[in-house]
């Protein structure tokens, strides 16, 4: 169930556009801010609020990598693996972080603590190799610094 606050915000988002569907992606992200992901029930409810069939909501939600249609861990780590970071040692950072968490990129730790994502260019090549932990960007990172950052997450 969506909270009253989320419903109010989605209503407000809808008012920004002449066409309700434009509010869909911002609405899904708003749901995710509160619930961590977008469940099938949430999709249906967002669809009702915006007057869209649930298939349309699901079609859009499944296209975008940062709309989670499965629950991620409590923390989401986005590790850049694109060229500038790769040239600056991102492969070693990735291996070290995977070892620290005991998972591979794309997985969530069994205790639900961290989801690790190998992502494309974060537009922070001046901080290569870089990663974003939840909403905070870090870099340039040595493998040890990166491992420490993910180990400190509760």
């Amino acid at each position, binding site marked *: 169930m969506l909270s009253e606050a989320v419903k109010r915000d989605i209503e407000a988002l809808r008012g920004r556009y002449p066409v309700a*569907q434009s*509010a869909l992606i911002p609405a899904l*992200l708003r749901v995710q801010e509160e619930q961590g992901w977008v469940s099938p029930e949430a999709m249906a409810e967002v669809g009702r609020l915006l007057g869209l069939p649930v298939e349309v909501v699901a079609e859009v939600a499944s296209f975008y990598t940062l709309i989670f249609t499965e629950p991620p861990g409590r923390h989401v780590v986005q590790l850049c693996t694109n060229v500038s970071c790769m040239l600056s040692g991102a492969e070693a950072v990735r291996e070290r972080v995977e070892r620290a968490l005991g998972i591979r990129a794309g997985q969530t730790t069994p205790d639900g603590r961290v989801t690790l994502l190998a992502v494309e260019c974060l537009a922070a090549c001046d901080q290569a190799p870089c990663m974003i932990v939840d909403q905070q960007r870090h870099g340039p990172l040595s493998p040890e610094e990166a491992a420490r950052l993910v180990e400190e997450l509760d």
Partner: protein
Amino acid sequence: MAEPVLLRYVREPDQGEIEAYERRGGYAALRRALRELSPDQVTDLVDRSQLRGRGGAGFPTGRKWKFVPKDAPVKYLVVNADEGEPGTFKDRTLLEGDPHLLVEGIALAAYANGVRTAYVYIRREFYEARRKLETAIAQAYQRGYLGQRILGTDFSLDVYVHPGAGAYIAGEETALLESLEGRRAMPRLKPPYFPAVMGLYSKPTVLNNVETLCCVPWIVREGPEWWLQQGPPQLYSVSGHVDRPQVVEAPLGTTARELIERAGGVRGGRQVKAFYPGGTSSRPLPARHLDVPLRHEELAQLGSMLGSAAVIVMDETTDMVKVIARVCEFYRDESCGKCTPCREGTVWVTQILDRILHGRGRPEDLDLLASLARNMTGTCFCPLGESVPPSLRAGLEDFREEFEAYIRAAREPVSMPVRLHLGAPAPGG
């Protein structure tokens, strides 16, 4: 070295505050335009500045604005803040360092084009940039630079920040419009070629990149002649094997050698092997081109492009096969899947590169890659799939011996007849 223009204040910690921005001359251009200039005069200044879009395509901004029909009752301005071309980080630098510069650029562009509603499409990962931009927009509303009857004139403008949700393809302008309309970010069929004629909600739409709009307040304030005298100023994102990767502001047409020097030189004092001049969609160039002016015309002559002016530097130790394979993987993962040559071509190319890298390359693979590169060119709705061939061509022409070395060293060289007849009808079919 001349004083930077676009980056002049990005390192001032208070630049995101409206008082500081105003104290340093901010919003003077908007005041001047609203008091003294007609919308057409603003467009004319931009046209005379010879400003070209900084998102990648390099289309002349003034000309783009002139395509917008004057009498259309509803028009939109959309700002592309979906910076995602690998190696590019100048828009993020501007958004985080000088967000009011963009807000003022938005207001000027909206005034010039008779727009009342603007959307800033900002990629999801720009958390800090978005916070700074939203603060700047709120402050601009409070001070009367946005909203109803701006500075007491008849000009009104609302600006909304619209988040993306993780899709490189949304940086392509028609895919961005699809995404902004709440759909999958899949490029539209062209024609119509220009959103200026038919864009958001099928209405005339001005679509500009962040850096492009950040140039506009300076052009309006100081004039197009001054602007051209400054270089014109161009932001180059310099990264990879340099000592201090950073956004370098330099006159358009600066060479890679000079940019690398400004970024602290090559890491470890090594030599350059190659560099991408305009992001990974441009053709990477071998070191013998270090003294070519990085400008649209010269780079086009080399089969490359200025693109987003992201200079990715690779030193002599770089494995070009690995780099090119990584670049192709990126486009494979980011292909939206709409057009077959891009969706399938990127998969085939990466499969071939993967087996070359893993000691299973075949002698005929290089011809196969060349054939795939031909068939991915000019066959899709948008340039994403077409971003793969430039890297492949450079690999096959300038770094061929590296590919051949992998294939020669293949543990079990298995030669197979090539049965794919790409681009020609299959025999009997």
